[in-house]
């Protein structure tokens, strides 16, 4: 696959994600202000330059410093939880789909029950019960409740791969169970797994901010969600201190939007059939239907494509 073949949407989303990651990784070194240090009074107005660029929050801390550290926290939680959920879902789906039989029945039943119970309920109950909350326990809890979607989609695919001939060849040549899974089944699902991971990360970041806003955020770190929690608790919206709540709100929106866009463009890259289908469809439809005007960034078709892959997370919302 050549780089030139990638849709423009991919580059836009990659640039956005790159910017966010840079802000989280390098940001703290550039701002060089401790997010817990008091640098001003209650809701000081933004002024040039440095740590005061975005004013101060309710505790007189630099909003800019909190923003970059908060982005870092949110990304860490998102990546960790996304990785946990994707790995568990992948394992359960692969084993269930490939093995079949009673193991599959049990795993499918667990998956279906897990899908039916809203994840937020379990997360709230566990978070409330935890004696100490930090970003790692939070990521663990979110990851452990989010893998069901992945498991179901992976299972559907791996059980269809199971009946293909190359699997028989591998089995005849004496390959072990795990070796077949890793070398003969997994490659067929890899593109889906990458996309599922991206969706899981964005879902986990949203979950984290939702929990933080409820007051169940990490106790030892600033995240975008905890920033909003304090901003709302101290009435910054009401008093018009926009610098306290607009930056984290925009950053969260940007992260989620960039990840969804990335996922939809990856879908197109990984799934050439979709691209051809799209071109064919464009010719087939009525003159009134989707026009052939030049592509606008963030334009059509990302979501239906995932829908076809049997991902109920097509809009990224159902996950939460």
């Amino acid at each position, binding site marked *: 696959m050549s780089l030139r073949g990638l849709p423009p949407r991919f580059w836009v989303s990659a640039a956005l994600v790159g910017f966010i990651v840079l802000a989280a990784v390098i940001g703290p070194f550039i701002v060089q202000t401790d997010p817990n240090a008091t640098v001003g009074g209650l809701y000081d107005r933004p002024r040039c330059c440095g740590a005061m660029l975005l004013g101060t929050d309710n505790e007189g801390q630099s909003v800019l410093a909190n923003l970059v550290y908060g982005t870092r926290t949110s990304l860490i939680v998102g990546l960790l939880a996304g990785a946990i959920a994707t790995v568990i879902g992948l394992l359960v789906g692969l084993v269930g789909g490939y093995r079949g039989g009673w193991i599959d029945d049990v795993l499918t039943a667990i998956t279906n*029950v897990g899908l*039916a*119970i*809203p*994840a*937020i*309920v*379990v997360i*709230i*109950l566990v978070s*409330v*019960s935890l*004696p100490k909350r930090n970003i790692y326990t939070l990521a663990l809890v979110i990851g452990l409740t989010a893998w069901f979607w992945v498991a179901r989609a992976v299972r559907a695919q791996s059980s269809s791969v199971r009946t293909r001939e190359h699997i028989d060849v591998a089995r005849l040549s004496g390959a072990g169970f795990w070796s077949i899974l890793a070398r003969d089944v997994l490659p067929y699902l890899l593109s889906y797994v990458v996309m599922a991971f991206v969706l899981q990360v964005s879902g986990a970041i*949203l979950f984290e*901010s*939702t929990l933080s*806003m*409820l*007051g*169940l955020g990490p106790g030892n770190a600033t995240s975008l969600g905890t920033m*909003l929690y304090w901003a*709302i608790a101290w009435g910054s*919206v*009401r008093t*018009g201190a926009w610098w306290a*709540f*607009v930056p984290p*709100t*925009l950053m*969260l*929106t940007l992260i*989620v*939007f960039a990840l*969804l866009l990335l996922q939809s463009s990856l879908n197109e890259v990984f799934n050439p059939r979709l691209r051809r*289908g799209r071109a*064919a*469809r464009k010719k*087939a*439809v*009525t003159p*009134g*239907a*989707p*026009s052939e*005007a030049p592509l*606008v960034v*963030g*334009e*059509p*078709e990302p*979501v*239906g*494509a995932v*829908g076809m892959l049997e991902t*109920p997370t097509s*809009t*990224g*919302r*159902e996950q*939460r």
Partner: protein
Amino acid sequence: MVLAKYIGRKLAWTLVVLVVALMLNFLLPRLIPGNPVDAIVGQIAAGGGTGGEQLEQIHEHFMQEFGLDKPLWQQFLIYIGNLLHGDFGTSFGQYPASVSHLIGQALPWSIAIQLPAIIVGWVVGNMLGALAAFKGGWVDRGAFVGSLFFSSVPPFALAIILLFVVAVQMGILPVGGAYSFGMTPELSVTFFGDAVTYFWLPFWSLVLVFIGGQAVGMRSMAVYELGSDYVNYNRGLGVRDAMTVRYIFRNAMLPQFTGLGLSIAALITGGLIIELVFSYPGLGTLLFNAIGQNDYPVIQAITLLITLAVLIANFTVDVLTGFIDPRIRAAQSGER
């Protein structure tokens, strides 16, 4: 007959999930190390203002209410028994108010926002999506980019921005709460007129996000259908467009309908957080306060309500799908 079997299976499935959910709801808070009642009474004592004798009374009351001196399975039965009586226990945070009372006060506000938002959002979103797919051109582009944006904005983020721009900056609508100071909830035109002004912003925050998600989904389904064989065949036969459009709509509708069941949990959660932003006195705000006070009975009751709402919504969608989709009546597949 097939339909009855289908519904029966769905019902059995829903009950299984309900039992699992009840067990989780019961077990998870009991994983807290140590005796929760001791911790709570300790907290009340630390708060001051409560005498020793009264504390002992509270301690007794909770020990008895939860049956904490009994084995776990008996506690579970007590818990289920109480739930069947509609008894959610006593609030820790607002002792001695009963949880049912607190929930009863908050629930109507949440329903008032969520139910209309879900219905309006679903109908308008699907119409918008279908329209965008059929019209194409600028209508499509505008509707699509807008929907994509709204569907990827976290609901609470939209709520915060709306609150700031419309209520604080422009001062068109009230800033927070559910009705003006000095009013009491009653069935009168004045109260209703007053409450509606507080209702708009949380409602719109939820509805816009939902419209976005639905429109994006419906549009891609409809565009996908537009390219399918039966549409080409119809066109070849010279069937009127209106008729083809009807076929397309029916086919694209079904996934959207099942999707409603799937997205309901996210929507409810989103709605609860939006209440926080506007300090709307619904379940979200109650949950927020309960978490702040470690008020386990209230938290448990709300999580149970969320689970129930999601299960009931999914069951309803499943049953209605059975009526709408002839394929389900024909096939007896056990796949959900």
